[in-house]
Each structure stands twice: as C-alpha cells, then as structure tokens.
C-alpha cells in the first residue's frame, strides 16, 4: 500500500511539473504516461462581506479526473447568493433623498449625508463549468471548455478553446486561446431609457406604472465578448519559472448598468434629477500579464503584475504577491498582498450640472472611476490523511474611490463623494 501511495504522489508531482497553467490552470501537459485514473476534488465555502453593503456567500465543488492517457476532465459547480446594498451612483446630499427602485416596485429614502445605496440587491447564481484537456500531436496540448451561468435576471453562456505547444525540452510553452461569451440581462422593471430621469413620485398613484414604463425601452438586452489570449511560459532555471500573457478582449452590446443613475445638480450642488447612466456599446481591452514563481530555501514566491488599457480610457495596474512558507509538520502559511489602481473611464463623472450639455455617454459608477484598492490576506493549510488538505483563508479588501478632478460645488463640499469601502473575505477549502 505504501508503495502504491508513493507512486501516486510521484505521478502527481510529475504532472504538476508539466502544468502550463497558461489559461487559468486549464491547460496541462503530461511528461509521461499516467498509469491510473484518478479523481481529485476541491471544495470551498467563501463568504464576502462589505461593511453596511453587499454580502455574498459562494460554494464551489470542483472535480478533476485524469485518465490513463493523460486526458483531463474538469467539472466545476458554483452556487452563490448575494444580498445587501449597492451604491446607485447618486451623490450624498445634506437632505434626505428618495429614489424609485429599479423594479418600479416602491421607493427608498436615503438619510442626509449618506451615500445613496439601493438595498434591494438579492440574487442567487448557479454556474456550471466544464473543460476537456488532452495531449495532441507530439508537444501539443489542446483544451476545450464551456460555461453556463444563470441568475434570476442574468444568463451567461461561453465556450473556449486553447492550444499549447512545448519547445526546448519542455522549458518553453507557447499557447493561444480564444473564448466567446454571450450574456443576456433581463432586469426586473426592464431596461431604462438611457439618460432619462428616474421617475420619482407617488408609487401608489394609478398612473405611476404607465409613467414608470415610459422610462423603459425594453425588457432585456444582451452583450457578446470575444477574447484572444497569447501566452509564453518559460522555465528560467531549477528554481524559477515565468509566464507572460497578452490578451485582447472585445465586448459589444449592452454594457450599461441598468441599476445605476447619476445626480443632475443645480449650481449649489443640490440634486434636481437622477439620470439613468449610459455607456458606449463597444469596449476593447488589452491586458499584459507577467508572473514568476521562485523557489526559495524558506518558501515559494508567487509575484505577478498586470497592465490593462482600454478604449474607455481606463488604465489599470495590478500587483499581486504571495509567499508560501511550509513548516516541517506539513502545515503552511501564505501571506498575500494585492494592490490595484485604475484611472477613470472618459465618460465617468461623479455628478452632472443641470445646465451643462448632456454628453452621449455618462456614468457615476465608482467602479469605472478613479479607484485604488488593496488586499491583505493570510492562508493557512493543514495536511490531512490520504493526501487531503484543509485550508483557511482570511482577507481584508479596501476600496478607495478617488476624485477624477471634478470640483465639488455648493453643498457637495460638505458631503463624502468618494466613500471608501471595507470588505472581509473568509474561506474554507477542503481538497481530497
């Protein structure tokens, strides 16, 4: 029995050697023939909680079957639930503000000085992912997969295909992949007419419904996303491996957030109307990603950097560093730091003045504004019997929206326009 176990772990190690991981760990090349079929499972429970805002719970069950001829089938099922409040885009005011819910069913009031949050967010999502990877000709690995995600008001279907080729004694791997996604959004209350004013009035009035419907242009809309990704993985020496990716992503269709508005204010900064936001119906993103893993005597360094630029004039930089420290008893601890900074989309504005000409595209969503975030976290892993592993992860995520240079006017000088957000991520993972 002992011999068999050792044999199994050696094979796992050999397979790990050949992991290209160019495409999120989906492409795997084998160094030698596998001699036994194995199933491996990862299960995780994650809870994400923002102070006074959104909280989400996510469960993942992922299974990977490796066949004797090195074909790999990966299946993943994800459930998540989301509840809580999300910023609706409007600015805080020195007086209470009333908003109509995106569904048209009722209204909510925000107290003076508080960032307007819509507390009706509640959704449950089920996602199924499948990926098939296998060796092809000498030195080639191919992989195809698909994904289906369904929420109450959102459906996403995607397919992907990748091909990877090893060179130089398997020290270099080149890869190219492509993915196509179709997303359908069917928000309760329909798609708002872009730049129309949110209807605010007596929602019990008999004419309210027809007036609300006049601010709607349809019941659903969709977008398509086409991605291409080129990757190079290179073994540098016995202790170091690097990876570089370039990816091009083009989206077209409905890229607006139907739940977001922007405050239209008078010369004293007082909100007069809330306009439904409008984003361009095309977006092209370029991302450059570099990563290295280095085997130090005391642990394993995982460092990566990503630069993204797009035709909405958003630029972002992401730094991510993890350092895994193993202990002699098999336990490990892994500190993690992530830093992210982005510049605003060219049509982002925190508010608009009522007498200014209305641009074609406008959004006050802080997530496409100037934004800095950082994450600090710690993971602790405990080996269990039969090569199983239990791990715990705790992370703190801080989002700090910033001004894009727009000067606050009148009463807006007295309120917080760029409220920071704190979130905690807690996760338990069991692998067997």
């Amino acid at each position, binding site marked *: 029995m002992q011999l068999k176990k050792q044999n199994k772990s050696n094979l796992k190690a050999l397979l790990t050697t050949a992991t290209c991981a160019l495409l999120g760990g989906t492409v795997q090349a084998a160094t030698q023939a596998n001699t036994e079929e194995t199933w491996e499972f990862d299960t995780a429970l994650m809870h994400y909680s923002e102070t006074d805002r959104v909280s989400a719970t996510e469960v993942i069950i992922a299974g990977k079957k490796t066949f004797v001829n090195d074909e790999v089938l990966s299946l993943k099922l994800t459930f998540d639930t989301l509840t809580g409040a999300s910023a609706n885009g409007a600015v805080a005011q020195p007086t209470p503000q009333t908003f109509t819910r995106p569904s048209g069913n009722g209204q909510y009031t925000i107290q003076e000085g508080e960032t307007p949050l819509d507390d009706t967010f509640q959704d449950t999502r089920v996602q199924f992912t499948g990926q098939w990877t296998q060796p092809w000709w000498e030195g080639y690995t191919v992989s195809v997969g698909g994904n289906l995600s369904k929420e109450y008001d959102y459906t996403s279907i995607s397919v992907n295909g990748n091909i990877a080729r090893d060179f130089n004694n398997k020290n270099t791997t080149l890869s190219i992949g492509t993915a196509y996604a179709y997303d359908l959004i069917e928000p309760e209350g329909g798609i708002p007419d872009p730049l129309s004013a949110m209807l605010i009035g007596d929602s019990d009035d008999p004419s309210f419904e027809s007036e609300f419907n006049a601010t709607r242009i349809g019941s659903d809309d969709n977008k398509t*996303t086409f991605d291409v990704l080129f990757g190079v993985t290179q073994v540098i020496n016995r202790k170091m491996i690097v990876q570089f990716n370039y990816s091009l992503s083009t989206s077209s269709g409905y890229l607006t957030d139907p739940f977001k508005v922007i405050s239209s204010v008078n010369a004293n900064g007082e909100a007069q109307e809330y306009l439904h936001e409008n984003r361009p119906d095309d977006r092209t993103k370029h991302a450059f990603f570099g990563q290295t893993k280095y085997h130090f005597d005391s642990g394993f360094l995982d460092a990566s950097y990503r630069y993204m630029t797009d035709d909405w004039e958003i630029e972002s930089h*992401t730094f991510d560093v993890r350092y895994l420290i193993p202990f002699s008893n098999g336990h490990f601890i892994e500190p993690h730091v992530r830093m992210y900074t982005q510049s605003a989309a060219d049509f982002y504005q925190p508010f608009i003045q009522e007498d200014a000409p209305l641009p074609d595209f406008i959004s006050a969503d802080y997530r496409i504004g100037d934004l800095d975030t950082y994450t600090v976290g710690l993971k602790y892993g405990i080996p269990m019997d039969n090569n199983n592993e239990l791990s715990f992860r705790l992370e703190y995520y801080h989002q700090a929206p910033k001004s894009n240079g727009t000067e606050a006017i009148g009463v807006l000088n007295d309120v917080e326009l760029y409220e920071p957000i704190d979130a905690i991520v807690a996760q338990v993972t069991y692998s067997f």
Partner: protein
Amino acid sequence: MHKYKILLMVSIVLLSGCSSLGVQPWERDLLAKKEMALTGSPIDSALDDHIYFSKEATSGGRSFGGGGCGCN
C-alpha cells in the same frame, strides 16, 4: 497589421532567447512541487476573479476576462 508584425517579432525574439534558458529533465525536482504551479490554487483564483470582476474595471489577464455574472 503593424501590431501583429511586432507581436510576431517579439515572439520570435522571446523564443530564441528562451532556448538557452531552462533545465534538463532530471533537474525538475523543485519545479515539480505543487507549490511551484503557476496557478497554485485554481479555486482561490476563481473566487478572487469573481470578487475583483464585480468591484473593479479590469478582469482577465491571467486567463480570459469573459462575462459571467451581473454581479454588483
């Protein structure tokens, strides 16, 4: 077309430069450790991608950015 030519040239330079790097098959003992896999924990990556996709304007890079949810 110009962009693609540059991409092709960069690939060729990288490839030829890479041929002097690397290890022999019997020197893969350390690289073979599971901690040295580029995506050390795919499940953590999937959860992180979902969070940051929902909260920031950038997604993908390591793998496809894609769509996938109407998350707020």
